[in-house]
């Protein structure tokens, strides 16, 4: 399968990427690792006229200690997030989950920023970053702004990014409550999660249980009231709108959400 024709541009700097995006407007898409966008283009579900390759922006690939936060460059690959000593020590949920994305080859190419900007509710990392109360830094022609994960994901593949804005950094607060858990259910390693659950302390977020990654607020409230993991997990499907597709019905996803939430909460208790 071959994508529809497009013009490839490789930006040498973030400034050049923003200029190219301004020049080409809605005909252009940023290309990071390409492991979400290129498959869509091969299926002709996406057909941008211009691809602005960001891979030369190596200064946007980093994991740094910034006091209360760990800050991660948007072009940091899943492999580098998964193997970061700093993240393994400070935010093991994120390092672990990044190591569960796709397979080794995908993790060598895919980036954390690409996964966030793509806005697929079936992706693992958006829900993980939602559970961690991450903040996304985006740059546009008018300067930078910060968007909390809770208001970033707006609908299926739709985010708070304005046309021409570039996600540059992910700021993740070092969690106060150390217990974490991550569970996902897939048919094959390389598949999107049918359902996934990320837990950090008393925060719980769900993968693929609606058109955006969701906080399981009913579970969080039960936990805050002192419920056991099993009792709290019984609320996991409340307030969700899980899709039905070739892999699973809505009811099955709701069942999985309860089971996986219980496992993730138990894992968090034991971590």
């Amino acid at each position: 399968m071959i994508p529809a024709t497009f013009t490839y541009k490789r930006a040498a700097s973030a400034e050049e990427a923003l200029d190219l995006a301004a020049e080409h407007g809605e005909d252009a898409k940023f290309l990071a690792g390409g492991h979400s966008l290129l498959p869509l283009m091969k299926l002709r579900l996406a057909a941008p006229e211009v691809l602005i390759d960001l891979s030369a922006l190596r200064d946007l690939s980093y994991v740094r200690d910034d006091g209360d936060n760990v800050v991660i460059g948007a072009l940091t690959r899943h492999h580098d997030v998964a193997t970061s000593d700093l993240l393994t020590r400070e935010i093991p949920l994120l390092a672990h989950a990044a190591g569960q994305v796709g397979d080794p080859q995908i993790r060598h190419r895919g980036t954390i920023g690409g996964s966030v900007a793509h806005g697929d509710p079936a992706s693992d990392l958006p829900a993980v970053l939602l559970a961690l109360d991450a903040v996304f830094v985006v740059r546009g022609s008018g300067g930078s702004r910060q968007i909390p994960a809770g208001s970033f994901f707006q609908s299926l593949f739709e985010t708070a990014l304005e046309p021409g804005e570039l996600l540059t950094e992910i700021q993740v607060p070092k969690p106060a409550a150390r217990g974490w858990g991550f569970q996902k259910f897939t048919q094959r390693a390389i598949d999107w999660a049918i359902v996934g659950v990320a837990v950090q302390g008393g925060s719980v977020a769900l993968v693929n249980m609606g058109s955006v990654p969701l906080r399981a607020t009913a579970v969080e409230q039960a936990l805050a009231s002192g419920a056991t993991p099993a009792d709290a997990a019984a609320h996991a499907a409340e307030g969700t709108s899980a899709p039905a597709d070739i892999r699973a019905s809505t009811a099955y996803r709701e069942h999985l959400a309860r089971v996986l939430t219980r496992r993730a909460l138990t894992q968090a208790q034991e971590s």
Partner: protein
Amino acid sequence: MNVGITVNGKDVTADVEDRMLLVHFLRDVAELTATNIGCDTTSCGACTVLLDGESVKSCTVLAAQASGHEVTTLEGLADGTEMHPVQRAFHAEHGLQCGFCTPGMVMAIVSLLKENPHPTEEEVRTGLEGNLCRCTGYHNIVRAVLAAAGGASPLQPPVTASEASA
């Protein structure tokens, strides 16, 4: 656009469409056909090559993205007539049946062993989760990786027909 990729140590330059996939560049421009096209959907791993030393699925990389970078295919592993240790291990452990997944498997394993030179059996199995073998010959593939990594395979030898019926 003009794409120049160092393939197996040799510069290959050509004017190609911007949308050309790396796997097509390797097979049709560089004329190196060990790299197979299997699922064409980033799933099966048959098209795995090394990009700057790391395993990638070349059906999901544009040739343009690889321009200015180094690619290694299966053809680039052997040293003259001397097989690469992973190739030798596949031969010794009978790590292939039909052979279609083999080039991608071998390249994924070279990358895996570079990151983790002495993996456990479990680490080998999870490290190869991006490569599918339609013959389901995984057991001997895992044996080959362990043999390449450290000599004798710690796995149980294959069950023979006479043992199975005993």
